[in-house]
Structure formats: C-alpha cells, structure tokens
C-alpha cells in the first residue's frame, strides 16, 4: 500500500486495516524473533542447568538400571528444552523501532505527501546517476564543476524531450515555441493497444508455423476453423475451407507488445512484452512462452477474475485473406487456457487464487490478439497447479480482489 503514487483516505484506511491484521497475526513468528542477547542468555541458562543436573546425578548413588538412567536423561533433556523455550518466549518481543515507524506512515502521508516521494532509494540512485556518472565523464581534474554542468545538461535535454513528447500528444496541433501560432498537422493514427513484434524466420505457411511451435497441423487447422466459425460472416472473414486456408500467407511472431494503462494514471502506459518463442531458445536460454490474461467473458463471469482467464502463449501469427477483395489481416494467438479452481473465487484461508490444467474440453483455443489484456504471473504449486500472484503490481492488485 505504501507504493501508491497518490494516496487517498481510502488507501490510507486500507493500509491501517492491513497493519492491524499484521499486528493481530504476527504472534505466529514470535518464537523466531530472537535477539542475539536473548539467545546468549538462553544458552547460558541451558549450560548452567546442564551442569547442575550433572552435579546432582554425581551425588546420587548409582543403583538404577540402564533403562532407568536413559529415562532420567530423557527427562532432563525435555526439561532443559522446555526451560529454553520458556525463556525465548518470555524475552522475545516485537518492540523495535522499525515496527513502530509503520504507525507514523499515515500521518506522514497526510503531512508531506506520498511516501515514495521521499524514499532514500531516489537519493541513492541520484548519487550514481548525478555524481558517479558525472565524474566518470569528467576530465578527473577539478571535477566538481564538470559534474554539475553534466547533470544540468542531461536534465535540460530530458525536460526538452518530455516537452516535445507532450506537445506531440496534442493531436493535430503543435504549438510553436517562439510564437503564438498554432500549426495544424496531419491527424496521427491512434497507437494500437496490442502489437505483434519479432518476426520469426521460416514461418510463411501454416505447416511451417506448426513445425516452429511443435503442434500437429490438423490440431491447429481445427482450432483456426473453430475460430472462423465464431467470427462474423463478412468479407473480412477467413475461408472455412481447409485447402484454401492452407494456401494463405502467414507470418509467425515471437513477441506480443501490450500497452497496459498504469495505475492512477490516464495517459501513461506500461509496456508488457509477452514472449512466445515456441520450441526455439530465447537469448541462449530455454524457450519462453509467457503467461497472459485473456479476456473471454463479461465482468460477471469467472468470479473474482471478472471475465478473464490465465493462459500460456503458445503461438503468435498473422494470416492474410488474399482470396477476398478486402484482403483482411487477422492477428491471432494460440493459447493454452487454465481452469479456475473454486470458480475463480479466492480461497479464503490462504487468500489466494488457484488455477490448474484443463482436464475436460478444449484447452488450446485461438483468440484474436486483442483479447490478450496483459501479462500474468503464476507460481507453480504442485502437480499441474498454479497460484495467481495478484500482488505482483498495483494494477493487478486493484483489478483482482
């Protein structure tokens, strides 16, 4: 909650309630919160007790059997362990300054603004960018002035670039800097939300696509035909004949670039680059087929996921319908969709959403790339099951709750 760029009364009250929950449940970890001094004290007490027990045993007349002596030793061991645990439990506490500081966060936000504004991380990074980088580029002789001018120059250029970018966003109008004239320009096309990138070699036909993705040709054809049957019957539609479909030009891609709006921002976007290399290696490593969110239903579907499902990208390609006059291009994604456990609702005890491999029905449909709304992160949890990490960023945290 502290990461929000802008805090409201609502986010602060959430923060307070999460903090209360933390304080209410932190006692589970009390036995692991042992300070060095406490551990030393416990060890000292244990040593003294052991010595005392040895002395007592030496004074007693040895007339017991082996079994008796063993039972006595066990009792002593249990007593020492209990005493050790008692002391640890008695001495451990959560009364330290960093824990106390959390209580001041809300008042600091109210007085000074968002916490991220005065994080020491900014200062530490600035030391690297402004001082160390400036010194590296200086003549190393009377470097102070050169460091200052280097950063001033970089900063001025950065501001200049931001100004140009902001002006270019004003669609159709660029304001001249030195005059009050407004210059009309050619209206720019709006940037598409999802773009295919990284053209793959030797993927010009569906057969070659199948080879690159290691998928059986008839399976892929079946899925494409099913996709075609779901689309509107207009001139853009792909032919529903297998032979005709097999002749159409195709291009395979390895990356899907998705513009995802940043949380609390209206005109800033984060670029998600979902990779899909099929069986091919990605940067000298293994193959990469990323997890994505696919919007397949309305807001009322799939419980807390609100119409979206988790899927693995298996293939990306575009196919041009040269047999029609419109010669429409279809940009498609082959995905493996996961089933939602508990109907897409949170598992209350763990507070997590779980997904699993689909057992029944089709799990490998073809969707338009427009249905892919962003990257997802799922953590493996046992055999063919995953936990949806809905705390990976603020946007996902706000959309899935």
């Amino acid at each position, binding site marked *: 909650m*502290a*990461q929000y760029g802008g805090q409201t009364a609502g986010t602060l009250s959430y923060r307070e309630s999460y903090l209360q929950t933390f304080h209410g449940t932190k006692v*589970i*970890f009390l*036995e*692991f*919160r042992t300070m060095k001094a406490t551990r030393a004290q416990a060890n000292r007490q244990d040593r003294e007790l052991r010595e005392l027990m040895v002395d007592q045993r030496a004074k007693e007349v040895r007339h017991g059997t082996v079994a008796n002596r063993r039972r006595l030793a066990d009792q002593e061991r249990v007593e020492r362990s209990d005493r050790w645990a008692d002391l640890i439990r008695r001495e451990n506490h959560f009364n330290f300054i*960093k*824990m106390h*500081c*959390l209580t*001041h*966060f809300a008042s*600091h936000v109210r007085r*000074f603004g968002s*916490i*991220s504004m*005065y*994080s*020491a*991380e900014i200062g*530490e990074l600035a030391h690297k960018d402004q001082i160390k980088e400036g010194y590296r580029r200086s003549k190393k002789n009377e470097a102070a002035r050169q460091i200052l001018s280097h950063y001033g120059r970089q900063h001025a250029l950065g501001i200049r670039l931001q100004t140009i970018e902001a002006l270019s966003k004003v669609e159709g109008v660029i304001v001249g800097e030195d005059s009050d004239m407004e210059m009309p320009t050619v209206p720019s096309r709006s940037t598409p939300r999802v773009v295919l990138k990284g053209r793959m070699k030797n993927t010009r036909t569906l057969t070659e696509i199948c080879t690159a993705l290691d998928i059986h040709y008839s399976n892929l054809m079946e899925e494409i035909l099913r996709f075609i049957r779901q689309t509107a019957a207009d001139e853009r539609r792909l032919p529903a004949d297998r032979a005709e479909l097999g002749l159409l030009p195709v291009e395979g891609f390895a990356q899907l670039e998705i513009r995802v709006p940043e949380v609390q921002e209206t005109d800033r976007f*984060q*670029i*998600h*680059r979902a*990779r899909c290399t099929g069986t091919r290696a990605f940067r000298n490593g293994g193959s*990469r087929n*990323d*997890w994505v969110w696919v919007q397949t239903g309305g807001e009322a579907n799939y419980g807390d996921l609100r119409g979206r499902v988790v899927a693995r990208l298996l293939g990306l390609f575009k196919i041009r319908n040269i047999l029609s006059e419109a010669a429409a291009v279809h940009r498609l994604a082959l995905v493996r969709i996961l089933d939602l456990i508990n109907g897409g609702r949170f598992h209350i005890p*763990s*507070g*997590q959403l779980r997904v699993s491999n689909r057992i029944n029905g089709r799990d490998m449909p073809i969707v338009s790339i427009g249905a892919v709304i962003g*990257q*997802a*992160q*799922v*953590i*493996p*949890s*046992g055999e063919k099951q995953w*936990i*949806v*990490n809905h*705390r*990976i*960023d603020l946007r996902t945290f706000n959309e899935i709750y």
Partner: protein
Amino acid sequence: MLYRENALRHEPAEAAGIAENFQRLGVKIGNNLFTGHDRVSPADLHKADLLHNIYLGLFKHIMEWVEGFLKKHKRQQALYNAWKESPPYPGFSVPKKTYREITQWQGKEMRNLGHCISAVLASALRIPDSSQY
C-alpha cells in the same frame, strides 16, 4: 509550526510529565544537531523511508522469521524452489541464483521478492500434513 515554538507551548508541569513518561519507557531526551536552529524543526526531519524501513528493514526481518518458521516445519526447500520458478513479469527480474546463493540482498532484490513472497509462501505451505495444522 516549528519544533521549538511547539515545545515552548507546553507548561513546565506538562513538560515534566512528558520527560517522566519517556524516562519510564527508557528513552533518553536530548538535543540533537538541529536543535535550536532558526527555521529548522527537528521533529519534522524524520520521514518514512521505503528503502531502509520497509525493503531493507522490516521486510528483511520478516524473511528471517518466515525462514525460521519454514525450517521448523521442514518447508524451506519448497520456498526456494517456488521462488526460483517465478516466471518473468514487467518490473520483476527472474531470479538467476537460488535463494541461498544470494548473500547480499539489495533494495531492488528485496522489492522483487516482496512482489511474489505471498504467492511463493502459499505455494511452499501447500498440502500441510496432520502435524502442521
């Protein structure tokens, strides 16, 4: 209002009560470097710091407790495995080393771990046996 002006508002009896209260808590009252300067308020100098208070401070402590907890229940390796298998995500660097191999946790790495610790921990604690309920 400045700290000094603020402090002057207290009546002597009230100030003595405050001093006594702090003494009971074991906190020593003293003047720091910034006390007495014009237009400087020492009480306002302290700001909540995400890097040192949360990522490198409290979160580091919490990870020690979590490790102790998992060690007790023999689930430590499950946490390391789940963390190593975290898939890529924008703003999240896929761990290249195992958890034990990282000797020095920096702010960025801690933040990285913070983004996935909840799901990783849930994965490590799956299917508890009868003694772990």
